[in-house]
Every structure is written in structure tokens, then in C-alpha cells.
């Protein structure tokens, strides 16, 4: 016959005492060590948060804005065989960031520059007004040779526009520069630790390799080209055989209180030939500007976290 298991309704005295002691110890421990537990919980939260930060990386864009005083010299045989030289102003912006947060080997770069100048011929009898604009986009591979020495090498596609006006020329007072180029770019960066600051030295080089450019035939007028539509011999393939140039920028970034200032020298040397005309543009600029790292939010995908405050909010 089936027998029921006896139900224990009362614990023995020794068992009850033991249970009581453990509970009491726990309560006392909790009471006494409340602060310790609180700290532990907080530390765990911070640790978890720190883990989250290292997992989720944000791409910073290094932005450089510089202004410069330049000394340009221009030879434009369409306007004059003489070398015009003078003074000018320039403005440059340069943005660089990695393509992806988890790959720090490849970065993209965009550049925009404006320049203007007033130049005179050697006899000071005629003046030239110059205005130039350039936009470029490129990519670089990062070589890390030593801890503080990096080399970036890559390519940059740019679009170049220039306007040159010699008012004294009665019938051909203007010539335009229009070109697009594929450039080789190189950048050498070195960080030098000083007592309090770290100075960031940089040497940037750029040279055109291939491209397409507008150069009017020496004997043709703009009336021919733009009114009558005769653009024969006005557009030319360019490569190292007819276009040589080198842009060099030597700069140092110096941190001040809450900003980093860039000081540098920029040398531009460009020479190209088409329609038996040899054009030259050399320029030396003293540049000053600022550089900072920034992150941008906007659009549907890149919304700012809640702890970022915008004036649009």
C-alpha cells in the first residue's frame, strides 16, 4: 500500500538557530556595508560604460583652416610673355578622416582653396588681377613607421579654376585656367613632445600626374571660342610630358590654451605647355590658421546623442 511521506511541519531547534544566524549576518552585512555595495555597483556601471565606449568608435574629422599672404608670379603668354609678380591672399580648408572607424589605414581628404592677387609686369606698366579656386578630393594610406612618425600616401582628384585679367590688353584682356587633375599626394607627420606640449610637424606634397586642361590657342580669341564655338585645340590631355607641378606645405601645429594653431609655408610651382605656349605659376605663401578635430551630426542616420546639445534643439 502506498504510504505518504511524512510532512515536517516543525524544524528542529538546531536547524532553526542556524537559519536565524545566517539571516541576521546578511542583514547586518547589508546594513554595515551599504556604502561598499553602492560603490561596487557604481564601479560596475562605469566599467560597463567604459566597455561600451571602447566598442563604439566615432570618426573625428581633422579640420584645418588657414589664411595666407602670398607672393605669386605668373607667366601667361596668351596675355603677355612677361612674368607678372605681386602680392596676394589665400584661403585653404582641409578636412581629413578615416573611411571607417575600425580601419585606421585608409583616410579620405577634401580640400578647398581660394587665392587672389594683384601682379605687375617688370616695367610696372601693366597690372594683372588674378583669382583662383581649387577643390580636391582624395584618399590616403597610412604608413606608421614609428610611434610618432607617419607617412600618408595616396591620390587626389582636383578641379582647378583661374581667372587672369590684364585690363590694358585691349582685345584679349582675360584668360581662364580650367583644369582637372589626378594628383599624387604625400604627407609626412611627426609629433615632437616638448615639456608641456606636443608639436605636430607636417610636410605635405602634391603633384599632378594626369589630367585635362583648357589652354586657348595663342592666335585665337575668346570670341572665336565662346561666340563662334570653335574650341579646336583648346582642350588638352595633360600628363608629366606637358604639365609639371609641385605643391609643398611645411607646417607646425602649436597648441595654445583651447586651440591648436598652424603656422607654415606653402610653395606652389606649376608649369605647363600646350599650343606652343608655356605657362607658369609660382607662389610662396606664409600661412596661419587653426586645426581641430570635429564630429558632425545631421541627417537621418547621424543624429546627435541626447547628451549633445544643439542650438537647433
Amino acid at each position, binding site marked *: 500500500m502506498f504510504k505518504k511521506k511524512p510532512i515536517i511541519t516543525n524544524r528542529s531547534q538546531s536547524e532553526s538557530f542556524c537559519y536565524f544566524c545566517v539571516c541576521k549576518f546578511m542583514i547586518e552585512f547589508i546594513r554595515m556595508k551599504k556604502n561598499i555595495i553602492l560603490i561596487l555597483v557604481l564601479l560596475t556601471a562605469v566599467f560597463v560604460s567604459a566597455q561600451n565606449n571602447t566598442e563604439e568608435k566615432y570618426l573625428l574629422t581633422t579640420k584645418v583652416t588657414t589664411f595666407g599672404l602670398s607672393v605669386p608670379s605668373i607667366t601667361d603668354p596668351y596675355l603677355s610673355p612677361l612674368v607678372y609678380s605681386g602680392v596676394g591672399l589665400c584661403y585653404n580648408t582641409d578636412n581629413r578622416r578615416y573611411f571607417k572607424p575600425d580601419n585606421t589605414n585608409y583616410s579620405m581628404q577634401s580640400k578647398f582653396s581660394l587665392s587672389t592677387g594683384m601682379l605687375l*609686369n617688370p616695367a610696372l606698366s*601693366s597690372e594683372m588681377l588674378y583669382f583662383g579656386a581649387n577643390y580636391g578630393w582624395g584618399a590616403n594610406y597610412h604608413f606608421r613607421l614609428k610611434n610618432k612618425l607617419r607617412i600618408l600616401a595616396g591620390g587626389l582628384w582636383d578641379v582647378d579654376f583661374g581667372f587672369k585679367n590684364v585690363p590694358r590688353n585691349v*582685345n584679349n584682356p582675360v584668360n581662364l585656367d580650367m583644369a582637372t587633375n589626378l594628383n599624387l599626394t604625400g604627407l609626412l607627420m611627426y609629433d615632437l613632445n616638448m615639456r608641456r606640449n606636443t608639436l605636430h610637424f607636417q610636410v605635405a606634397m602634391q603633384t599632378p600626374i594626369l589630367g585635362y586642361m583648357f589652354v586657348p*590657342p595663342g*592666335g585665337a580669341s575668346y570670341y572665336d571660342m565662346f561666340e563662334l564655338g570653335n574650341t579646336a585645340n583648346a582642350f588638352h590631355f595633360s600628363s*608629366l610630358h606637358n604639365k*609639371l607641378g609641385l605643391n609643398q606645405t611645411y607646417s607646425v601645429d602649436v597648441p595654445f590654451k583651447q586651440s591648436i594653431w598652424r603656422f607654415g609655408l606653402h610653395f606652389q610651382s606649376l608649369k605647363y605647355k600646350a599650343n*606652343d605656349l608655356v605657362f607658369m605659376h609660382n607662389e610662396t605663401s606664409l600661412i596661419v590658421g587653426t586645426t581641430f578635430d570635429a564630429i558632425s551630426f545631421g541627417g537621418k542616420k547621424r543624429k546627435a546623442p541626447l547628451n549633445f546639445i544643439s542650438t537647433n534643439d
Partner: protein
Amino acid sequence: MKRYIYIFLSFVVLLSSCINEPPTQPDTYKGNFESLWKIIDEEYCYLDYKNINWDSIHTAYKTQVDTVTDQYRFFDMMAGMLGELKDGHVNLYSNFDKSRYWKWFTDYPANFNSSLVFSERYLGDDYRIAGGFRYKKIANDSIGYMYYGDFSNQFSDTNISLIMKSFSGCKGLIIDVRDNGGGYLDLSEQLASYFFTEEKITGYMSYKTGVGHSDFSKPIEVKTPAHKTVKWQRPVVVLTNRMSYSATNSFVCRMKQAPKATIVGDKTGGGGGLPLSSELPNGWLVRFSAEPMFDADMNQTEWGIDPDVKVDMNATDEKNGYDTIIEKAITILKE
């Protein structure tokens, strides 16, 4: 790696030799003379057409360079050399003078008397002015008359439309471009376009492609379009004289092909070469004809364009207050 760098650098050095700068002359009398001679030799477009032996001119003037003692005489000597080109589009500009060749009109009858044009018989005092045009109805309000003295004076379609509207009751229109020394070529095209019913080839242009005297591009068609909205469909007479030059010459060349246009007066002054400029080492500017322009039959227009009806001013008419050329135009339009 080093090997490749050396190869690349050698390649660049080799290629850089492809871009040789042209030799430049020093800023001396001789250097400036040679520079001017070379610019004309390589870039002036009418040496062959005018049958000019530029080498012999070099020989003739080179001997004068050594005798020059100051910049004024040097300028006169250089201006004299440029004068051999017999071209109104050739000038030498210095800070103290501008050389010019004016015989293209000074050797011919003026065929224009502005005091007659502005007399009561024609424009008088009560003419209207719009976009560089001075205009009024003449010959008992039967003829519209517009004087246009400078192709550098801009005008708009609205200007022309309203001028033509004011002439709506007239039998014909006179456009007087006598003593108009030229200006913008695009204005000559615009003004001509009001008198065409369809686009037409009205001339050709070419430009120098090399340093040889006959190195020219293929002729490029110069078309005159018919204006889309503003049209004068009645007879028109264009009045010309020897001072109708450059862009005015181009306008007359176009109007020769306009369906209801008649050119009346004297042969135009020419100036068929579109000018460009260059500079000498001393900073003087030289302007010269660089692109020859041709009429619709590929005839050069440098020496001028013949009118359809040749008329010279008559001294007796002039004394009596009549402009012979305007009177002839009125007669043609009233026929």
C-alpha cells in the same frame, strides 16, 4: 624600393625637359626691337596677304636701333616699323605715346559731316536717344533714320524693338554707321540679326596655328542668326564711309547678306583682322591683327567692303544743307 624611386625621378627630370620656356629678350633697345619684330613675324596675320617682306624690314630698321639715343626716338622708330603694316589695328602703347596708322581713312574723302546729320533736315535737336542710337523719322516721316557711332555702346532688344515700333509707319529704315570706328563684334552680330529672316553664313574667320606666315586654321563659319522676336522686314539701307571700321566693317559684311539691305556710301575702312595684344620687355604693349575675317565668298575684308551703291558727298549738296548719301538712301527706300 630605392631603385624605383631613382627611375621615377629620372623619368620626371627627362619629361621636364619637354617644357622648355621660350628664350626671352633683354630689356635693351636691341632686345625690344627684336622682340617686337618677332611678335609681328610670328603672330601678325596679314604679312603674306599684304605681300610684306618682313625680313627686309628687319634689315632696314635694325641699323636704326644703334643710332637711337632716347626712348622717344626709339618709340618713333618702332612705330615707323609697325607703320609698314598699314593696319589701323596695329598700335604700340607706351606710357608717353600711342602709335597709330590712320591712312586708311585720312587718304580718302570724309563722306560724313556731323553738322549736316544733326541739322534740322535730318536729326535736328529733337531726336531721341536709345542704347547709343540717335533716331528720328525724316523725309516727311516716311523714313526711319538711326545714327550709331560706336559699336562699344551697348543696346538691348527692347531698345531696338521700341525704335522700330516708332518707325512702324515708315517705308524703310536707314542705319548710318559712318564714322563708326568699331567696338564689340557681338554687338555687330546682334544688330544685324534684326534684319535676317533665317540664320545665314555671312563670313569666315581663321586664326594662326603656327609661326609661319601662312599657318592658319581652317576657316570657321561666322553665322548671323535671325532674331527670334525683333525683326525689321521692310527695306533697310546701311550708310558707310571709310571710317566704318573693324566691328562696323564686320556689321556691313553681315548686312551684305541680309535679304532687304542695301549698302550705300563709300567703301568701308576695313580692319578685318581681329586684334590681340602682347608685350615687349620694356613693358610697352603691342596690338596687332591676329585673326583674318573673310566675307561669305571667302574674300578678305582687311581693305574694306565695297558698297552696293557707291555715293560720295557732293560739295554743292553739302553747301545747300543736303547729305548726298542720306538723300540717295531716301531715294532708294522710296522707290
